[in-house]
């Protein structure tokens, strides 16, 4: 009996593990098999056609890149400041714990609520209408916890002797932050930022009411009433009207491009995290 359990448990667990990996492979393979034939230079570079789901995805791609870039410009400084306050400036354990809990609470807020919040503040109260800037700010706020937590983990893992040595040389605390802590920990922030951007690129719910439209716009000029097209929103709308086979091919192509973009950003973060793991071992 004991022997059977000892043999059976790893087999059962391995089956679970293989099933998890098979799910990923199945999903990626499905998108690949149906999306790859659609992909061409023209599909990426042409604007969308007159009919639903015809033509290319030039401005959808542009809109997504614009939203993600804005999210980075908004989210990175906020996260950097937060991480420094939590890991460096605040000394009391109570203060740090409070900041950490707050960050987790923000992280748990469902993305649709950011969308409704953006509708209240940007679209209606500030009267921007749908605007790329509103979408970028909302996505930026959403990824603050992702970047800040990655940065805090790296700062806390920094050997204390580095900071002590710098203090012994007579460096001020601000100087220690800019000359010791940030150069040593930037890769943590960068990998957090890449993962955050991968999430921001794929988000639909926050831009649903605040930034994205389905067709009729190209490059925004200004902020007010300046929506963009975006890949996730494009897929979301087409998926609700999926019975037209022409739109179907277009849909798989768009999904393939979005998935490739997101996975590329996540994979870029891997070497940075590997380096972090190695440095932690050698201390």
């Amino acid at each position, binding site marked *: 009996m004991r022997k059977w359990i000892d043999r059976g448990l790893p087999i059962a667990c391995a089956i679970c593990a293989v099933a998890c990996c098979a799910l990923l492979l199945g999903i990626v393979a499905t998108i690949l098999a149906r999306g790859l034939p659609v992909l061409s230079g023209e599909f990426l570079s042409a604007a969308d056609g007159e009919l639903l789901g015809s033509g290319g995805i030039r401005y959808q791609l542009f809109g997504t890149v614009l939203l993600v870039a804005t999210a980075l410009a908004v989210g990175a400084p*906020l996260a950097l400041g937060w991480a420094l306050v939590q890991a460096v400036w605040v000394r009391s354990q109570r203060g740090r714990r409070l900041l950490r809990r707050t960050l987790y609470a923000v992280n748990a807020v*469902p993305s649709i609520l950011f969308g409704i919040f953006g*509708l209240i503040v940007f679209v209606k109260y500030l009267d921007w209408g749908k605007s790329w800037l509103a979408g970028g700010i909302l996505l930026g706020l959403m990824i603050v916890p992702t970047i800040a937590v990655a940065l805090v983990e790296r700062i806390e893992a920094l050997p204390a002797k580095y900071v002590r040595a710098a203090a012994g040389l007579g460096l001020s*605390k601000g100087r220690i932050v800019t000359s010791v802590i940030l150069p040593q920990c930037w890769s943590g922030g960068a990998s957090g930022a890449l993962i955050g951007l991968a999430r921001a690129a794929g988000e639909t719910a926050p831009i649903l009411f605040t930034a994205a439209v389905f067709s009729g716009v190209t490059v925004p000029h200004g902020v007010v009433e300046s929506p963009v097209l975006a890949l*996730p929103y494009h897929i979301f709308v087409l998926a609700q009207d999926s019975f037209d086979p022409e739109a179907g091919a277009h849909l798989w192509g768009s999904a393939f491009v*979005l998935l490739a973009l997101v996975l590329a950003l996540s*994979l870029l973060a891997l070497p940075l995290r590997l380096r972090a793991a190695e440095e932690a071992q050698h201390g």
Partner: protein
Amino acid sequence: MRSSLARWASYGATGLTLVFGTALLVSFVAQSLPVWRHEGLAYVTGSVWHFRSEQFGVLPMIYGSVVVSIVALALAAPLAVGAAIWSAEYLNGRNRWWFKVPIELLAGIPSVVYGLLGVLLLRNWIYELFERFEPLSGDTLLTAGVLLAVMILPTVMTLADDALRGVASSQRRAARALGFTQAEGVLRVSLPQAAPGLVAALLLGLGRAMGETIAVFLVVGRQDSQADYGLRSWLEAGQTLTSKLGSSETFLAYGDPLHWSAIVGLGLVLLALVLSLTLAAGRWLPETGLARNRRA
């Protein structure tokens, strides 16, 4: 001089983030006040949502959210915990890394892509599989639950793996020295010791399932009224808090203060459910594990 500049810039950024967070919370409470005054407690217990007759009961949506999340967790939990045991107890460093990379990538797939797979594949499979129960279509609460199960799998698996690896290896060695087989060590030492972390992993998975919008929206059927609350309803179209919030009714409602506050109230109920799950998980798992909770 430089010290104070870096310091004030950091505090400024933190303050700004806190202002946005507080504004979010305040706007959901303040803007939903009219509907609480109009409906009272009947807002969460009423089962009719009909905005033309100014009836706002969100019980069907709460029911939908709870059902899809529980279905998702029931399907994902065994698979995720099994995979986590495999990764934490049977794999060594390098092999574990090769296993965790695809899981991390699985966590990164956008929800709209899951939604697309749900629309084009899963809802047909569900329809065919349960054909003898005569569902009206493949858009059901069950479909949304199955789709969510795949989506929360990486979250639960990563957190469960962290919890198991938090058990000191000296405990495992002690178990072996007492004559336990490896499997007995896992079942009688690692799992009980990791139990708080595992519970937290499940609670966070539940919270994540509850907050997911886009994929659920595409396959849940989006029907406001719930004919019955029995098992049969799992194979009928339903509505969740999130799918209601994501519908075009949100845009339409803005002009009418009462209707709008009923929509915002859905958000407040959702926020309360998700935050209490997260806080409960935080009690079990006070340290950094919560950071791995990927947003829905």
